């Protein structure tokens, strides 16, 4: 992932003025982003209460670790990037887009559901898988790596002139169910020795613990055992990051 480009796209999409080069980014924040990133609620509250127009701050973000100079260093694992990641995660959950089609004749566009879903395997350790699944809501056709397929397509939030949307045959709710079913059958085919391992580790922890507790302390021991179970007990969960409804021309397949 190109961090510099990622940040540039993020700030530009948020209508900020961005300058700099491929090693450092200077950005003039908008009020919205200042509120999100700069952590100064009192300032904005004060501005609002006095009826003044606040002045958003600027940021210099250094993306090249070799570069010395004034600015905030940003990289994977840095709090600033975490902040941006969570901002995206919380706010960019739903979308609806129409493929931009230039046509002089009346053209149908077909509804696709794209869902980006994470599988979380949790036990002694944690493993995650991330899938982007597409489903044609008219004929039930499915795609993996849907986001990859959508990437080169030009989109607009409004439908192009001369285009008309086809109504979904499959309801959204059952569309999600089909995607879920696909993922569950994928999970079932996986090797699950990790779960057995986690159970073994859990039992070992519990038996060690029992060695150390006297019989009269059953209560605190039970609590410890509960804590251990919470940490070790194997589980699998599906979690949807975001999803969108995409109206595509007939040649998307």
């Amino acid at each position: 992932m190109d961090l510099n480009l990622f940040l540039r796209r993020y700030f530009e999409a948020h209508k900020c003025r961005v300058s700099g080069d491929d090693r450092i980014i200077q950005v003039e924040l908008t009020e919205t982003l200042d509120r999100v990133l700069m952590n100064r609620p009192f300032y904005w509250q004060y501005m609002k209460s006095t009826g003044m127009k606040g002045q958003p701050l600027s940021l210099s973000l250094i993306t090249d670790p070799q570069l010395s100079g004034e600015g905030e260093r940003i990289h994977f694992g840095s709090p600033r990037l975490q902040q941006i990641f969570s901002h995206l995660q919380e706010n960019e959950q739903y979308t609806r887009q129409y493929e931009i089609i230039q046509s002089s004749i009346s053209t149908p566009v077909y509804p696709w559901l794209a869902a980006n879903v994470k599988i979380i395997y949790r036990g002694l350790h944690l493993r995650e898988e991330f899938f982007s699944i597409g489903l044609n809501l008219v004929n039930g056709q499915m795609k993996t790596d849907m986001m990859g397929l959508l990437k080169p397509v030009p989109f607009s939030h409004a439908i192009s002139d001369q285009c008309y949307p086809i109504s979904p045959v499959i309801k959204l709710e059952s569309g999600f169910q089909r995607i879920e079913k696909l993922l569950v059958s994928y999970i079932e085919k996986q090797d699950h020795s990790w779960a057995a391992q986690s159970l073994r580790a859990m039992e070992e922890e519990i038996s060690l613990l029992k060695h150390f507790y006297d019989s009269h302390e059953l209560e605190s021991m039970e609590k410890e055992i509960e804590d251990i179970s919470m940490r070790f007990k194997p589980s699998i969960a599906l979690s949807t990051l975001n999803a969108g409804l995409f109206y595509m021309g007939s040649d998307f397949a």
Partner: protein
Amino acid sequence: MEIHKDTAFPLQFQEALETEQPLSDWTLFQLAYEAQRESISPFFKGLRALGHLPALTFLPHQIETAERAIETMGGRAILADEVGLGKTIEAGLILKEYMIRGLVKKALILVPASLVSQWVRELNEKFHIPAIAYRKNYDWNQISIMVSSIDTAKRPPHRDRILEIDYDFLLIDEAHKLKNHQTKNYEFVRLLKKTYCLLLTATPIQNQLIEIFNLVSILRPGHLGNYEDFSRRFGNKRSRLREDAVLKQLVQKVMIRNTRNETALNTAARKIETVWIDFSEAEMDAYRQLELAAASLPPFARITYLRELCSSREACYLSLQKQAGKGNAEMDAVLAQIGNLPGHAKAEKLAELIKKIGDEKVIVFTEYRATQIYLQWFLKQQGITSVPFRGGFKAGKKDWMRQLFKDKAQVLIATEAAGEGINLQFCHHLINYDLPWNPMRLEQRIGRVHRYGQENDVKIYHFSTRHTIEEQVMSLLYEKINLFEKVIGQLDDILSELEISSLEKEIESIISESASTGEARIKLENLVSVIEQSAEEDQKEA
């Protein structure tokens, strides 16, 4: 196994489409997807941080330690490597990994006041972790990665602010200082709300088993049962740690200890050389006179004066002066005799050796402040640049002196192991101008240079003056048993098993309470053979 499904999302999605709420921009929607793809942990094992830190080279034991702490200890561990194996590096790697996985956003790092700036520097420079040192009026809530001394943190009003915060990550350096569960520091640390927790210590088991219990109880309360049961069952016998397999297993589940013997650090070898000094006739005469005059003094004082004279005229003169005019004519005469000595054979040998070493950096350790000041002056006369270093320097001054030594001066003259944690890997000549009587302290000195990041063989010179008390100590403690080479890694363990709390005091009392050199020799030999025997037993068991 049951699979938890995400039932809420489809409903929210449908609602978002049906109502007129604004939907995501296409670019931002893609960015959210890319950010998530970047943040997932695709494998059960392995450190993702390594890929994000291309500029750092890690030693195998450091990577293993970080993996173990995260993967099998659930991020709660005591890191107890021997001095100089890179505990800071291990801790930084662990913190970085959690930050990359998005599991740590808020961290508190509590270290001795003298090490705050060093921690901040290392985390920022090596790991690109934006750690910030606490300064007056900083808001504990606002700063994501805060480094502070425990003494600052536990004081009001900070204490209450800090205790309100849910920390994802807590690190305590020099955690052996928390060994006593009745102290304010211990109580404070127990009260901190934390998810992951690292305790760093070089000497986890120097003393008593109950101290291990207290450290473990910070990480995993109840892991070793409760205090009463534990002390009833195991008492304070360290040896129980080896005897009781279950206890051992329990401790190993939370503690990682790498020793120099086991690690790749052995590649940078230590070369130890003894440098003998012969006193001039005048010096030897003064030494003999002092021995005679001080015969009537308490043994401990006598030995101290003799050791001081071996170090410098100044060190001895200053402490004798305090006794002057108290009616001991012999002592007053010796004082005058020492005051008239023209120089010091040891200092001359030092200048000679440094000139022989040439352009390379040299650290000189002495036991005495007066000697330190004298040597600085003396070396200057000889055209050799030097900077002083003392444990008592403020953090900023320590940093400054370290930097001066690195960039401008050839020699660093230090009085005590220069505190914990100062790193001088850029230097590989170390002169023990006076030898400490405790081999552990010698190890700490050597640990300043023979540590992670040292690329050269380390040359160590022990200075010892012939026909003096130094020769006795040298031949008994350092030459004969080679303590620092053979058992140093286990020495703290062994001493606590033998319930010897301070080897230095033990040796001092043997020498001062013995009527003759011969008697002292026999007693010391006994002490040494007990230690050796324990070391052998340890090795057999291992």
